[in-house]
């Protein structure tokens, strides 16, 4: 974990590399397989859903682009925190690591809002669009609602007013695989935020976070950047390809 177990830091090792850093890289290689399996599941089931909203119905690329940007910038902030620490600026370190954690939380907030949006997704279209090709397959599936006198379809509800067109993990294969993949990424981010905040608060104890003990920060940073590169893959494969019709 983050701190204090620094007994190995000055130890002579066979390769000259630090024990903990080597473990971290082995872990990241292993975690690649974890996300690889989740992404494989997502792709194997892509387009196989029976009913329910599809990526094109729910995704909002501009919004996700913003949260992607925030996560990318948090990586910069993280590396600047590390850089400040190695140059001996504890104050700079605190500012940057706090901003990294805040950007991480911002990303998570975006994710919470996004999930919430998807769960409460309601179809909404004008009946004149039916059959023009501007509606998604899911929206077209409600074209039978456009009977005489109905101009637009605004949400589908049961008799108790419950939304019937939301996307949950139970709705279809897209919901199942999407929430699981991005949910586990979110869990990784959450763990990262906890780790970063732990180091941040720990740095207020004198002599706990110092340039000599930069490895504690280095390991957290490696984890954080890894979470970032996973999101780079998810953003392209899930979001951009999700909305792109030809994929």
């Amino acid at each position, binding site marked *: 974990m983050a701190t204090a177990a620094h007994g190995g830091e000055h130890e002579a090792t066979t390769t000259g590399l630090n024990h903990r850093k080597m473990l971290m890289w082995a872990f*990241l290689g292993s975690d690649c397989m974890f996300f690889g399996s989740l992404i494989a599941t997502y792709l194997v089931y892509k387009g196989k859903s029976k009913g329910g909203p599809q990526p094109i119905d729910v995704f909002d690329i501009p919004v996700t682009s913003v949260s992607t940007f925030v996560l*990318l910038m948090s990586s910069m902030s993280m590396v600047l925190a590390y850089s400040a620490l190695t140059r001996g600026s504890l104050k700079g370190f605190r500012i940057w690591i706090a901003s990294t954690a805040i950007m991480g939380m911002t990303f998570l907030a975006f994710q919470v809002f996004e999930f919430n949006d998807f769960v409460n997704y309601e179809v909404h279209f004008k009946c004149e669009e039916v059959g023009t090709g501007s509606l998604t397959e899911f929206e077209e599936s409600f074209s039978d609602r456009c009977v005489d006198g109905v101009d637009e379809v605004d949400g589908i509800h049961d008799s108790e007013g419950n939304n019937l067109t939301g996307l949950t993990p139970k709705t279809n294969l897209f919901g199942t695989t999407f929430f699981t993949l991005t949910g586990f990424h979110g869990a990784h981010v959450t763990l990262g935020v906890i780790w970063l905040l732990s180091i941040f608060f720990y740095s207020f104890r004198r002599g706990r976070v110092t340039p000599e003990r930069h490895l504690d920060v280095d390991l957290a940073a490696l984890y954080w950047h890894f979470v970032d590169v996973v999101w780079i893959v998810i953003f392209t494969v899930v979001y951009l390809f999700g909305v792109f019709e030809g994929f």
Partner: protein
Amino acid sequence: MSEDTQAAMQHGERKEAAHPSPLTYVAVAMTLAVITAIEVGIFYITGLGHAIIPVLVILSAGKFALVAMFYMHLRYDARLFSAFFAGGLALAAALVFALMWLSGFF
């Protein structure tokens, strides 16, 4: 053995040579932001058709590589670490493609 360059780098004695300046980090961040903007931008340019898939794959692979090489310091660090990471990554990619192939995705 502990006196070799690696250990020296870890103790920050040669950090100027070992790690780039904050300016480099900011430049990398700007590049990442620009690539993301391009990704989203070309997405709304119709007419590229299926060519958009390799383009997006290459662009995001570039982002991935930038973060791994500069922010994760793989460019400056021991090759063993790169091997660990690249090994896991390559196997994961192979797994994804194999399962897509076996499931009739292509």
